[in-house]
């Protein structure tokens, strides 16, 4: 079974196109990063002159040679991969993301459903929600640090906000877009209000909950990294090396270890991908009727 699917994967041009694209990207990056070493100044000077003549300031021009090469990044990664501090950063960020995300689901789904089914809940809750929603989660960081007793709670709260609004909006929209016919059919067949909620509204909203949480998860990672950078990573918990991946990047920047910055960036990419895959799998599992489309 696994053998056949692997064989099919290796036989597929789509797979090899993907591999080729990644390899080409890495090669170009490596060449660009090494251009400082092998490119004679006389070779690129005319291009710079031309750009300066067009009115660009010499010092402002970007130079890909300033970016660490993928080989150097890999070396740096191998160096940190054995360190507990690096994995502690992973753990801290994952923990915050999960804390924020899970509480956003636990509060956001019932809240969104309440807004959808009850006119008075909508009347009371929605205006406040709509005023708070445009405030970017990062604008909450200072207030959050003042309000919450620990920095850990403060960061988790900000991540919570990142996912919360998206989840509520999706649940509300999803519940409201359920076709009227389903309600009419259920009502005709003798379903009570509770039955309609459980058997029509909940499953009818589920696809939107899945979409909302996927989007929310993405925002959560954006927010947690920025919050860790701003707040100094909640340093009293894990020490300087345990402040999460955002703090890992910031710390590398302050310490002048540019390879490590890229290591941190790619780590976040991988972490985000793993979370999305996890959610996709969960979504696939809870909405079996959508698999056939």
């Amino acid at each position, binding site marked *: 079974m696994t053998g056949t699917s692997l064989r099919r994967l290796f036989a597929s041009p789509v797979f090899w196109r993907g591999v080729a694209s990644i390899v080409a990207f890495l090669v170009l990056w490596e060449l660009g990063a090494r251009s400082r070493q092998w490119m004679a100044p006389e070779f690129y000077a005319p291009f710079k002159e031309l750009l300066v003549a067009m009115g660009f300031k010499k010092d402002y021009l970007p130079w890909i040679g300033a970016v660490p090469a993928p080989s150097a990044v890999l070396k740096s990664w191998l160096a940190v991969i054995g360190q507990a501090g690096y994995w502690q950063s992973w753990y801290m960020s994952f923990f915050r993301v999960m804390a924020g995300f899970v509480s956003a689901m636990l509060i956001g789904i019932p809240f969104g459903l309440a807004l959808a089914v009850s006119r008075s809940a909508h009347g009371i809750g929605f205006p406040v929600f709509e005023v708070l929603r445009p405030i970017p989660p990062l604008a909450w960081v200072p207030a959050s640090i003042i309000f919450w007793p620990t920095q850990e709670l403060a960061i988790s709260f900000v991540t919570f906000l990142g996912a919360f609004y998206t989840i509520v909006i999706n649940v509300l929209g999803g519940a409201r877009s359920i076709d009227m016919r389903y309600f009419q059919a259920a009502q*005709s067949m003798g379903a009570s209000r509770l039955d309609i909620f459980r*058997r029509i509204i909940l499953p009818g909203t589920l696809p939107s909950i899945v979409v909302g949480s996927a989007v929310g998860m993405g925002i959560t990672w954006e927010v947690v990294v920025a919050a860790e950078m701003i707040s100094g990573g909640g340093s009293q918990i894990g020490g300087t090396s345990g402040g999460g991946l955002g703090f890992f990047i910031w710390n590398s920047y302050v310490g002048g270890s540019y390879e490590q910055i890229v290591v941190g960036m790619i780590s976040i990419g991988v972490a985000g991908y793993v979370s999305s895959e996890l959610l996709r799998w969960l979504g696939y599992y809870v909405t079996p009727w959508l698999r056939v489309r």
Partner: protein
Amino acid sequence: MDIRDPGPSAATRGRIVIDDVVKIYDPEGAAVMAVDHCTLDIEAGEICMIVGPSGCGKTTLLNAVAGFHEITSGRILMDGETLCSTEVPRAAPGPDRIVVFQNGALFPWKTNLENVIFGPVMQGRLGRNEAIDKGRAMMADAGLIGIEHNYPGEVSSGVRRRVEIVRALMNDPKVLLLDEPYRALDSLTKSVMHEALLEIYYKNRVTIFFITHDLEEAIFLGHRVAIMTTRPCKPKKVLAVNIPHPRDYGVLTSKRFRELIEETNEAVHEEALKAFQAGEKEG
């Protein structure tokens, strides 16, 4: 001439009387009259076909019987009991009047069998296991075998319609309200569906209130065909289809069938033209 061979006479329930019903949308603002003093007496166990151009107000009438919409005045009775009237403008929806919707309303998140047993389980008439047994039997009866555990999205639209009709019949309704259920089907599937519906009808003898804009469909299936005027809607001509049941597809090529089409085609075309012109005026 008794045209209601064995069908209606075998049924004792499900007579629908629509008595002088008026429906005006938005009585305060720009009032639009959708149904204009409509009177129609549908016998118990009759297949009554309602024919009219799209948007003529026939669905409004169906929704009033089902209890999804209010009426403005008049009354609708079922077996002598008032469903709705000027005083109580909206009937309570119930399992005795089940609608099969134009685009289908099977719950996509439930398997076909779960859909079929929904009604009796919700009403507490049958336990889950009894309902499953009955549902399987009724699906098998309608030729729906091997798709019980598929989701509606996994089967063809023709099969979905049949599942939905079985789901409706599981409620033991007095009246089936069909709102252009075969509109989206191709003509080959449609002809199969017509025979399947008649077969189900011969077994169950339930009153059928069937909305369509397809005159051939109407004459092939119905005991009577009510041709409606375009908005506001009321019967323009009620045709008794004196072709004996049970019918099969041979009927379509019979001389009598052609004559009936000819007899009614003009009335339908006239209304379609009016609806088209009205649409142009609005647009």
